[in-house]
C-alpha cells in the first residue's frame, strides 16, 4: 500500500494518498469506539479525562472523514480509467490533499485535548460545533468547502476534457449534490427543531441518497474493472438504481421528521418513501451477483478443457464488493426498515436499536466497498495482474464481518429491551432510562458488544497488515 511504483497517472497516485490516510483514520475510529464501549460497562474509565462524549465524537467523526477520504481516493483512482485522461490539476489536487490532512489533524487534536469550550460563538468557530457527525468547527467547515471545490473542479474539468462515460456522468452529478448538501449543515440557529430539520438534510441525504448513488457508480466501475462486465449492461443498471435510490431516498427523509416538532404529514410521506428504500438495495445485490455469475459462466464456457477459469482478477476486492452488496441490503435495507414506520419508530427512536442499524448500515453500505477500492488501488500500484486472497485477507474478512454482525446482534437485543422496558412499559424519562440500562439483559448485551468490538479490531489489524504486504508479496510471484 505504500508504493505507487506501477501507477502511470498522478491522479491515481493522489488516490493512493487518500487511501493511506483513510485506513489510519479507520483504525483511530475503532480505538475510540472501544473506549466508548468500555465506558458503557465501566463508567469510571477515563471519567473527566476523556469522557464518553469526546470518545464518541472522535469515533463518528473519524468514521465520516475516513469514508470521505476513501471516496475521494476512489474517484481520483477511477478518473484516468473512465475518462482516459490525466487529472487536469494534479498539483493543485496534491496541495489540497496536504491542506486537508493538516486541517483534519488539527481538528482531531483539538477534539481530544481541548474537548469543549464556553457557550460562545468562538467555540463553534474554533473547537467544535456540537452537532453529531458534523462537529467540525466552522473554520474547518470553510476549509473543507475550499478543498472540496478544488476536488470537484478536478473531477469536472477532467470529465469535460475526456471520455464521458455513463458512470462518470452519474459520478459528476452525484458529487455535486453531495458537496452542496454539506452547506445545509453550516449555520447556527436557536431553534432546535430548525436545527435538526437541516441537520438531517446533510446526514440522511448523504447516506440514503447521494452516498448510495456513489456506491452504485463505484460498484459499476468495480464490476467492469474486476470482472470485465459489459459496460452497456452495467450502466443501464446504474441508471435504474439512480432512479430507485433518489426516487425513494429523497422523500424518505421524512422518516426523521416524525418527532422533531415538524408537522404530522411527514408520518405518511416518511413511512411511504422510506419503506421503498430497501427496493434498490435488493436490486443492487441481485445485480452484483448476476454479473459475477454471468462473467464467471462465460469464462468457464470459453475455457479449454481442464483449464481453470477465473473471471475475477482481484479476489479480495471482489469479496469486499460482494459483502457490500449484501451488507447494504442487510444493514440499511432490513435493519433500516425495522424501525422506519412511525408506529414502530415512536418507541425505537433514539435507542440502542438505532445504534444497531447505524453500525451495520455504515459498515455494510460503505466501509466494505471502500475497503474493496483500497485493494484495487494496491493491485494497480503494485502492478499485479491477478490478485488473490491471502490468509490475512480471509482473516480480515472473517473477523471484521463476524465482529460487526456480533455487535449488531448485541445492540439489537439491547435496543429491544430498551424499547420494551424504558419506552413501552415506563414511558421514557430519567428513571425509566436507568431502569432499562441496569437490567442484566442490557448489561450482558453491552458486554457482548465490547467483545465483538475487540474481534472487529483484530480483523482490522489483519486488514492493515494485508494491505501493507499483499502488493509486494504477489508482485514478486508474478
Amino acid at each position: 500500500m505504500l508504493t505507487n511504483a506501477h501507477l502511470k497517472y498522478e491522479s491515481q497516485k493522489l488516490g493512493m494518498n487518500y487511501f493511506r490516510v483513510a485506513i489510519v483514520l479507520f483504525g483511530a475510529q475503532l480505538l475510540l469506539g472501544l473506549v466508548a464501549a468500555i465506558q458503557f460497562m465501566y463508567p469510571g474509565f477515563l471519567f473527566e479525562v476523556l469522557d464518553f462524549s469526546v470518545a464518541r465524537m472522535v469515533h463518528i467523526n473519524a468514521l465520516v472523514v475516513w469514508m470521505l477520504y476513501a471516496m475521494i481516493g476512489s474517484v481520483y483512482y477511477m478518473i484516468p480509467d473512465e475518462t482516459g485522461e490525466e487529472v487536469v490539476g494534479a498539483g493543485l489536487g496534491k496541495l489540497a490533499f496536504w491542506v486537508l490532512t493538516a486541517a483534519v489533524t488539527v481538528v482531531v487534536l483539538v477534539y481530544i485535548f481541548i474537548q469543549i469550550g464556553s457557550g460562545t460563538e468562538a467555540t463553534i468557530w474554533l473547537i467544535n460545533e456540537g452537532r453529531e457527525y458534523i462537529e467540525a468547527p466552522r473554520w474547518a467547515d470553510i476549509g473543507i468547502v475550499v478543498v472540496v471545490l478544488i476536488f470537484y473542479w478536478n473531477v469536472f474539468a477532467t470529465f469535460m476534457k475526456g471520455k464521458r462515460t455513463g458512470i462518470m456522468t452519474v459520478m459528476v452529478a452525484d458529487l455535486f449534490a453531495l458537496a452542496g448538501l454539506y452547506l445545509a449543515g453550516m449555520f447556527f440557529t436557536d431553534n432546535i427543531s430548525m436545527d435538526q430539520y437541516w441537520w438531517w438534510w446533510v446526514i440522511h441525504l448523504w447516506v440514503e441518497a447521494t452516498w448510495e448513488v456513489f456506491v452504485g457508480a463505484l460498484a459499476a466501475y468495480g464490476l467492469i474493472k474486476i470482472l470485465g462486465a459489459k459496460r452497456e449492461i452495467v450502466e443501464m443498471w446504474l441508471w435504474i438504481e439512480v432512479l430507485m435510490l433518489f426516487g425513494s431516498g429523497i422523500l424518505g427523509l421524512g422518516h426523521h421528521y416524525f418527532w422533531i416538532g415538524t408537522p404530522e404529514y411527514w408520518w405518511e410521506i416518511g413511512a411511504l418513501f422510506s419503506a421503498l428504500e430497501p427496493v434498490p438495495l435488493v436490486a443492487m445485490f441481485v445485480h452484483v451477483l448476476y454479473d459475477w455469475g454471468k462473467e464467471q459462466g462465460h469464462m468457464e464456457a470459453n475455457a479449454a478443457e481442464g483449464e481453470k477459469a477465473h473471471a475475477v482478477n482481484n479476489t479480495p476486492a471482489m469479496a469486499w464488493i460482494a459483502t457490500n452488496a449484501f451488507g447494504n441490503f442487510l444493514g440499511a435495507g432490513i435493519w433500516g426498515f425495522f424501525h422506519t414506520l412511525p408506529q414502530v419508530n415512536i418507541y425505537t427512536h433514539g435507542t440502542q436499536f438505532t445504534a444497531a442499524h447505524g453500525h451495520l448500515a455504515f459498515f455494510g453500505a460503505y466501509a466494505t466497498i471502500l475497503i474493496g477500492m483500497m485493494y484495487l488501488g494496491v493491485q494497480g500500484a503494485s502492478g499485479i495482474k491477478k490478485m488473490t486472497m491471502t490468509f490475512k485477507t480471509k482473516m480480515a474478512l472473517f473477523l471484521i464481518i463476524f465482529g460487526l454482525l456480533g455487535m449488531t446482534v448485541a445492540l439489537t437485543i439491547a435496543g429491544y429491551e430498551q424499547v420494551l422496558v424504558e419506552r413501552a412499559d415506563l414511558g421514557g424519562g430519567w428513571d425509566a432510562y436507568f431502569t432499562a440500562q441496569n437490567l442484566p439483559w442490557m448489561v450482558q448485551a453491552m458486554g457482548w458488544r465490547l467483545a465483538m468490538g475487540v474481534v472487529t479490531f483484530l480483523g482490522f489489524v489483519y486488514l492493515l497488515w494485508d494491505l501493507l504486504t499483499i502488493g509486494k508479496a504477489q508482485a514478486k510471484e508474478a
Partner: protein
Amino acid sequence: MSKKNASVWTSIRFWRRSAAWVTGTATVLLIWLTFNTMGQISMGSDADLANGVKKRIPAPTVINYHIDYVMDQKRGHEVPVIGQKEPFFGKQWSAEEAAALLHHGKLTSQAKNCMNCHTLLGNGAYYAPDLTKAWLDPRWEDGTMAAITGKNSKEEAMAEFLMHPSQYPTHARMMPNLNITQDEAVALVAFLKHMSSIDTNGFPRNFSQNAKRLEGGTNAH
C-alpha cells in the same frame, strides 16, 4: 448485441431520462414541503403566547409559563400544554431577555456537546437519558433533585446539577463536570424548558403515564 434496442426496457436513454425526471420530481416535492414545514416550525411570538395561539415551537418567553404534557384524546397522544404564568429563576423575562437566554443556552448545549451523550428530540447519543422533556421529568417535578441539591425550585436545582453534575450522582454512570458557569447553567435550563414545550407529535410516548406511576409529575397535579 444487436444495434437496435428491441424495447425501451433495455434502452439506456430511457432509464437515464426516467432517473432524471424522478429525481427532479422528488427534489421539487421536497423543496415545496420544506417551505411548508419552515412556516410551521418557525418560532411563535410572545403575543401568540399571551393570546393562547398554539405554535409547534413557541416563543422563547414560554419560559415564563407553566408547561405540562397531557394526553390529547383527539390526536391520540400527549401534547405540551402551556398554562399559567410562573416565575423562572424568580422573575418574568422580557421577550429580548428570553431570546438572549435561549440563544446562550442553545450555544452552550453545542459548545458542551450534550448531544454526544444525550438525545435531544430523540437524536444524538444513547449514553444518558433523552432530554426532550427533561424539564417535565418526575425527578425534577417531585422535589427529589431539589432536596439532593438543596435548592428551593426546580430550575435552581437543575442549574446546580448542571454546574456540578458529578457531585450529585444518582447512578454509577455519572455526568462529568463540563465547566458550566452559573450563567450558562441558567441559559441551559431555559433551553431545556423551551424544548419541553415543543409539539413533538407525542414523543416520548407515555411520558406522563410514567410520571403518574412514579408519583408526582405532570399528569398528577
